[in-house]
């Protein structure tokens, strides 16, 4: 039986992928579409390395079937900047030096983007809650927290 053709909108582009309905969005992004900025970390939705935005909301790609996001707008880390102009979160992570090995960073930034999308001015407890599912094994949490605060301020100022 031939697998269905899934039509996805990824970073503003229409993409078509042949995949069984239960194929994870992570597998499709990384291996079918070559968007390797989204990382594999655990495969059970417990580390946040694979977070992408689906219709603006942070979603764990490793536990999201690709068939579930057909017709929705998907943004990955590769699609966050506008041309050469980085997203304020990307700028803030650079400014705060909020990375060591960097492997968790795309997922961190996408989780934070989901948070700031629905709550432009989050309190510290709100940030901690939203980011609790994202693991940084280098434990760069203090700087990431600062970076998210900084990005929120920058986005406020851009308005």
């Amino acid at each position: 039986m031939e697998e269905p053709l899934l039509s996805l909108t990824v970073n503003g582009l229409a993409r078509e992928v042949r995949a069984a309905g239960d194929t994870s969005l992570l597998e499709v992004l990384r291996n079918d579409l070559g968007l390797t900025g989204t990382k594999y970390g655990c495969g059970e939705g417990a580390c946040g390395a694979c977070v992408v935005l689906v219709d603006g909301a942070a979603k764990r790609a490793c536990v999201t079937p690709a068939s579930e996001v057909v017709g929705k707008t998907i943004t990955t880390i590769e699609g966050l900047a506008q041309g050469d102009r980085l997203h304020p979160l990307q700028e803030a992570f650079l400014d705060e030096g909020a990375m060591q090995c960097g492997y968790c960073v795309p997922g961190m930034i996408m989780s934070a983007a989901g948070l700031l999308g629905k709550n432009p001015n989050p309190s510290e407890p709100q940030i901690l809650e939203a980011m609790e599912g994202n693991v940084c094994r280098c434990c760069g949490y203090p700087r990431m927290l600062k970076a998210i605060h900084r990005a929120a301020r920058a986005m406020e100022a851009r308005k």
Partner: protein
Amino acid sequence: MTEFEESGLDPKALEVTRRQILRSLGGGILVFALAPDILAFAQRGGQRPTIPQEVDAWVHIGTDGRIGVMTGKVEVGQNARTMLTQAAAEELLVPPESIHLTMGDTDLVPFDMGTFGSRTTPTMVPQIRKAAAAAREALLGLAAAKWGVDRASLKLEQGRVTTADGKRSASYGELARGQKLETPISDDTPLTPISDWRTLGTSLPKIGARDIVTGKHTYASDLSRPGMLYAKVLRAPSFGATLESLNTQDAEAIAGVKVFRDGSFVAVAAPRLRDAERALEMLKARWSEKPQPSNKELFALLTEGAEKQALPAGAHMTLQGRYTAEFIAHAPLETRAALAEWDGKKLTVHTGTQRPFGVRGEVASALGIPEAQVRVLVPDTGSGYGGKHSGDAAVEAARIAKALGVPIKLVWTRREEFTHAYVRPAGVVEIASGVDAGGKLDHWQFDNYNSGGAGLGCPYGVADPRVEHHERESPLRQGSYRALATTFNNFSRETHMDELAHALGLDPLEFRLRNLSEPRLRAVLEAAAKGIGWGGAKPPKGRGFGIACGTDKGSVVASAVEVEVDSAIRVLRIVNAFECGKILNPDHLKSQVDGGILMGLGGALFERVEFANGRILSDGFSKYRVPRFSDMPPMETLLLDRPDLPSVGGGETPIIALAPAIGNAVFAATGKRLRDLPLTL
């Protein structure tokens, strides 16, 4: 046998490498940095060192002005790439962006044992500085000869050599043109004094950071090749299980799937990862298992046959203590990954490892080919923490790639990482001590079972200390971990010191200082104590302060904490003081120290590999708790800069004093003494 051969180097392989390097570099100026021990060996033998076996870094000034620096060290998040670039830029007086640093490519860089033991800062930084300084001196010599001027009158600025009157000027590339100069470094080459540093000692931002925040950086797990197959390896269900029978029919029925079997090593490969995953599930394997230990008998097992410690007769006061630590996992966020290609003659593998040359040896021996036919490349990697010394994924991918003749990509799952990667050794420490009437240690016996010999020595003054590490057979595959056994040895020692202080009715800080003559350790201890407000107002009920210190790999650390204890231990505040000589990049050092402390919080409070009957049960982040955002307490880090001392590494030692500081604080808050890691009420 020469010392080189003993070191595991294959001189023939390196000769090939040398030719490749010289060919690829073309003309210009090439400077070799010799490892100090090898230089000494060569000098003893009275022979000129031969190149390149003895070389541990290269600096090359190309005729196009490109400055290449090559080292076998790798970047795993500790920011070695940035620091080593700073080292070269400093001595060549060029902006850091002029330096192109090649790391961990076994065909292009000199042999290196590996990136571990906090060695990059104390050994590779000076080597690269010397090599860069020698290149600088060679450039000055060329310019002086060319223009017939005194070299001392020449100025260096932004990659150019200029005469004092400013009339003549040449770029490094122009000076290197037409040259084929090979020069080894010497200890006489003048290094830039700290007072003149422009790049070293500053917080140069991480090199490659922009590619990380945009998702462009390709880790080993992100690579692909046309025609590549994704592989999955069949894993034994428990340690020591043997494969009895295997039926591959269903797996092979999936379109595009290939099965590879070599004895008990079984793998499937397919053009799509999902098909390889499905094929793995379709393999029908029957295993023969044997009974294996579990957590509950671990410590009894490790101390089987241990001799009972004797307490000294006639001491003013004696104390015995027994401490334990569970196995913990590194859980690097990028799992083991490799992309292997076989072209009929050579196996090339990209993989994340801390020991590229070690992995080259592993791959060569697994394939039964000479090391010269293996090339290992290490892209900047998604962390290691001592957990990526081996080449598991590289060897597996290489075996499959060579057999199937197509590029193979193998990325371990998180479950494989938790259940098949090696873990930090568990251990038991027994201490018997004695103190004289003046509150000075006068007896110290320290026995470590299984966890390791690092950090075994007692930094406190005591005559005739007896310390020993007893090797044991581990029920799990164990190996290196950030700071090795020092974390647990220091936990045991610093908890015991706290117990002694309380038994003597002395303040724990005062008791430590009374027994501590090492001024650097005293300095960090006093700084951390001051930072937390030690000896100030009595904390409210249920709260307490704790302190601990330690030294390892030439650096010193002290952690002081305040905790609140109800049904759980809550760390309210952490103050760390750390000193590792002259600081080379303050911002990155702070990042390493803070990261180490928070990583240490996991081992102190909740990390524990659960296993039963040879099976690791904590096989995912949902079952193995690591520090997360909400675990982060307010934290202050004091970095003590000592320009008068040589720089040593900062990635490991900061982790060693946190757990005992927390345990000691819990005692201060509750009167309950915790002697086991992770600390549990």
